[in-house]
């Protein structure tokens, strides 16, 4: 909730005349503002041809909202020192930068719509607004914190030794050897079939792969914790149809690109270390359980490398090409396509200011990810309708049957986990379907209402925008 002072700072400035009931509205161009000293500004290395900065704004619940902002704009906003008005600052900036396109009106709109509500500037009359935590739509359907910063950070600092160069080289070589041994000598000839795992081995495999996934998360956390950080937590979530463990590494935005890449690959590096341990365990106690775990861990890692899902491969690709908000920018490319056929185009999208190689990468990514998601929706719909839904009641009946006839710990534990997993997957699929239906209806509604609400004059102006002005007879 905003306080009265905060609301006053957000609302357009008004001067109240005590002698008369009439309100005198003072244009905000003559108001003076202050740049919020709690806002942190640092350089952001990215693919843009314009110099960008990372602007970190403190928000409610000890969270931080991060923006990529053109450096020129921050230079302008930092001129607000509490004495200068919008007119002063704009003219001062434009004198120093003759090629500037900022006008008093546009800066004034920016301040009212963004800088004040988001706490970047504030009026002399009161403190800056502390905005609500980011309202960005999360990409996890369900999110639950498992390990807090106070626990993760010290452990992650300790594990940071695994990134020490000699250790990194040694373990890297062992990872390679373990994979060669497992896939060329141990697995062939053993007729392993993942569908055969049941009962106690299923429980063991599940526990070991979950522990490996947790270690994966510590890999990201350790890479981040090598530099000081204030927010590092590990949690559980549901992404598309996958139950996932996550680490919040948002502070990595302030790192140099190669440090961000290290955070991205840190998880895979740690999970690969588990393969070394499991190969060693197999020699000590040759149980196929360890081999199943190696296969499943490698499957999990290959899934993580898929750049179209927001997993390690996505962040790796985004950081290697310096494209922030890769998904958002690829959607912007798709949305921009119809505008290529219009004369009257809206605002120039950011991706047009990218360096050439990043722009090409973004276009290729857009085409491939569109194809991938179309395929994914078809497959997910097919599997949900024909396999998951019909088999779901049977899952419960076989669990209750096992409970009556063989109520062992492994049967109950394995059965419960299996039911929880399938339920989570089913909820994820149904939520995805519900969101898709909502979006389609919303899109159709906006499209139809937009067409119905246009007057004949508006229709004529749209036709003129598209076709150009009618020629005089």
């Amino acid at each position, binding site marked *: 909730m905003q306080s009265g002072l905060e609301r006053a700072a957000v609302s357009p400035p008004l001067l109240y005349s005590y002698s008369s009931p009439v309100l005198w509205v003072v244009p905000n161009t003559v108001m003076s503002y202050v740049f919020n000293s709690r806002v942190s500004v640092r350089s952001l290395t990215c693919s843009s041809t314009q110099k960008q900065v990372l602007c970190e704004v403190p928000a409610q619940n000890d969270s931080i909202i991060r923006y990529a902002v053109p450096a020129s704009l921050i230079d302008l906003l930092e001129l607000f020192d509490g004495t200068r008005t919008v007119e002063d600052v704009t003219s001062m900036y434009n004198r120093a930068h003759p090629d500037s396109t900022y006008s008093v009106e546009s800066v004034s709109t920016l301040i009212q719509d963004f800088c004040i509500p988001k706490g970047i500037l504030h009026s002399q009359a009161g403190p800056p607004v502390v905005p609500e935590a980011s309202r960005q739509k999360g990409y996890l359907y369900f999110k639950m914190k498992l390990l807090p910063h106070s626990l993760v950070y010290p452990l992650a600092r300790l594990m940071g030794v695994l990134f020490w160069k000699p250790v990194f080289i040694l373990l890297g070589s062992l990872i390679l050897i373990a994979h060669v041994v497992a896939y060329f000598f141990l697995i062939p000839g053993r007729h392993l079939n993942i*569908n055969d795992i049941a009962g106690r081995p299923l429980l063991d495999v599940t526990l070991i792969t979950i522990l490996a996934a947790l270690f994966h998360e510590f890999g990201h956390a350790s890479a981040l914790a090598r530099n000081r950080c204030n927010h590092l937590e590990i949690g559980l979530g549901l992404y598309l149809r996958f*139950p996932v463990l996550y680490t919040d590494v948002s502070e990595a935005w302030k790192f140099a690109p190669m440090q961000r890449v290290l955070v991205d690959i840190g998880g895979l590096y740690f999970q690969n270390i588990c393969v070394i341990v499991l190969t060693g365990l197999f020699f000590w106690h040759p149980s196929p359980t360890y081999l199943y775990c190696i296969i499943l861990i490698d499957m999990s890692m290959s899934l993580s490398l898929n750049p179209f899902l927001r997993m390690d491969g996505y962040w790796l690709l985004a950081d290697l090409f310096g494209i922030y908000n890769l998904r958002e920018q690829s959607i912007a490319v798709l949305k921009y396509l119809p505008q290529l056929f219009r004369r009257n185009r809206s605002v120039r999208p950011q991706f047009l200011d990218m360096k050439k190689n990043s722009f090409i990468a973004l276009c290729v990514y857009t085409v491939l990810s569109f194809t991938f998601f179309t395929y994914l929706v078809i497959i997910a719909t097919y599997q949900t309708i024909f396999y998951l839904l019909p088999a779901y009641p049977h899952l419960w009946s076989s669990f209750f049957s096992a409970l009556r006839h063989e109520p062992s710990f492994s049967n109950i534990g394995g059965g419960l986990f299996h039911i929880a997993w399938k339920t989570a997957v089913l909820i994820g699929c149904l939520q995805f379907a519900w969101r898709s239906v909502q979006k389609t209806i919303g899109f159709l509604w906006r499209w139809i209402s937009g067409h119905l609400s246009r007057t004949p004059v508006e229709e004529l102006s749209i036709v003129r925008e598209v076709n150009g002005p009618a020629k005089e007879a």
Partner: protein
Amino acid sequence: MPEDKKACDQTLEEFSIMELDERLEFVAWCDDCSCKPKTA
């Protein structure tokens, strides 16, 4: 979409400002292979 958010989004687009994504690095511990039909 509320009007104030719409206005804010338009302004951000106009000034080439972008709210950066929350970076959640995550891993699924297993592809849901049990979704596939069981082999005989």
